[in-house]
């Protein structure tokens, strides 16, 4: 191995899969041997069996759909509002000076700590779940988008001005397209964080969703179901991440050429 030397694509895939295999192997070893009691950690086969039962008999598909809709809904809402505000803050320094201190403060407010308040304000319905996701992702998005837009190369801005661009068109034709790949990366990252908030939101006052199933299983000490739920979340996260990466590569081929 040499530092920073690239790895062959096939070897890369093999190594990535190898760790999953190793992980499951260790898990199997400690559970099947009886070294860890079933009550603390279910074995992989048991996990798959109860996962099958969950999906076929207990309508777990509906829970997954509910959780998906909450994440996507809350995240889209946050994105729709964060994009224009972030771009404005990045482009106009007085706007940034006005909002930035508050947004910097607000992004450290833990979204999960708002749950009791949100239940008080909007009840335990869908609005509360969406609000948790929104609070968790909106402030992060605004700040990171503003930085991405504000970091537009100054020489490109100057070149655009010498080509006669107007101030509003500078935003439309230079600042936004120039920072678009970075903004797409920011969305991908924050969507990952939104997944962690939704489960917390569903642990309290929910009647459906993956988080709700996990709380129910806790009462029954059904570690197999809990692990299955966690793995489902991980898989959905992995798939959405890959989709995002693929879409970014498709939308911004020019940004990939250098990598």
């Amino acid at each position, binding site marked *: 191995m040499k530092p920073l030397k690239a790895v062959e694509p096939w070897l890369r895939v093999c190594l990535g899969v190898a760790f999953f295999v190793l992980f499951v192997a260790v898990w199997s070893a400690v559970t099947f041997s009886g070294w860890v009691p079933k009550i603390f950690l279910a074995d992989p086969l048991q996990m798959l069996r109860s996962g099958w039962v969950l999906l076929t008999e207990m309508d777990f598909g509906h829970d997954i759909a509910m959780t998906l809709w909450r994440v996507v809904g809350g995240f889209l809402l946050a994105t729709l509002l964060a994009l224009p505000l972030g771009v404005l803050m990045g482009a106009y320094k007085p706007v940034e000076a006005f909002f930035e201190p508050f947004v910097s403060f607000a992004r450290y407010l833990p979204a999960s700590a708002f749950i009791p308040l949100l239940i008080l304000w909007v009840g335990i319905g869908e609005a509360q779940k969406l609000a948790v996701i929104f609070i968790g992702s909106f402030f992060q998005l605004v700040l990171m988008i503003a930085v991405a837009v504000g970091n537009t190369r100054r020489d490109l801005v*100057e070149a655009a001005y010498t080509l006669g661009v107007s101030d509003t068109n500078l935003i439309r034709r230079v600042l936004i397209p120039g920072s*678009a790949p970075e903004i797409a990366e920011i969305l991908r990252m924050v969507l990952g964080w939104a997944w962690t908030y939704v489960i917390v939101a569903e642990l309290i006052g929910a009647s459906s969703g993956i988080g709700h199933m996990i709380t129910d299983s806790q009462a029954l000490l059904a570690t197999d179901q809990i692990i299955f739920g966690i793995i489902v979340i991980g898989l959905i996260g992995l798939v959405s991440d890959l989709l995002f990466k693929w879409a970014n590569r498709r939308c911004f081929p*020019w940004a990939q050429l250098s990598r």
Partner: protein
Amino acid sequence: MKILQLRRVERRFASASGSTLALRATNLDVAENDFITILGPSGCGKSTLLRIVAGLDSPSAGEVLLDNQRINGPGADRGMVFQSYTLFPWLNVLDNVCFGLRERGMALAEQHETARGFIRKVGLRGFEKHYPKQLSGGMQQRTALARALANEPRMLLMDEPFGALDHQTRELMQELLLGIWEAERKTVLFVTHDIDEAVFMGSRVVVMSARPGRILLDRKVDLPHPRHYAIKTSPAFIALKAELTEAVRGEVLAAQRASEGLGGPESSTDEVNSSSFDEGPATEPQQRR
């Protein structure tokens, strides 16, 4: 006929120790179809001067008139080619060249027709769909030139546009630009620290002093057009180069003395991208004292 007039243009930069005078009250008249090359040591304010004409920087005193109108900011009437590669990376060559045309609201078909014409002029036919990252440095600067020309500016401002290119590419670019100028007779202000380049391209060479910059020498270049690269070895060319080398050398030494006396330069704010002064490999080696 005068197209551009600089009237006692001065530029001060705020610095820790008060303010630094980068450009001393400078007068310069540019006539229609002039190709003026501006020579000077690093940090002499030649880039600052060009940026003020472009409207990207404003003078602390004095004014710049373009067609007797005072310049207050950048505009499409002064096209610029920068030393750094400033093509928009998200646009291909064709769309980069169309950038200014689209801003004017030109119909798409007309934009493309105009742009293709200029892309052909800079020898990039067939590269319309390439993105900047896929082009060499020389090709990127040729595209930048086409982009500036397509906008039909009154003047073309060039800030060491070939400074980052290797020597061979740079010489080809000089011939290309000169050929275009000879055909179109644009008015050009061209900043460089390469004396060969200044003499070969210019119809007038302006030498600037060490900081604070002022115009030291304003010399007409009486070499016939069209100029062939072989002219670089003609007696007239060599004589003029020798004269300018003397003038610039004095200023470089003055700049060095000034910076040594101060214990290091007060960061040359105006020439962020320029490398240290050198004449380019083609010139005779200077004797160091």
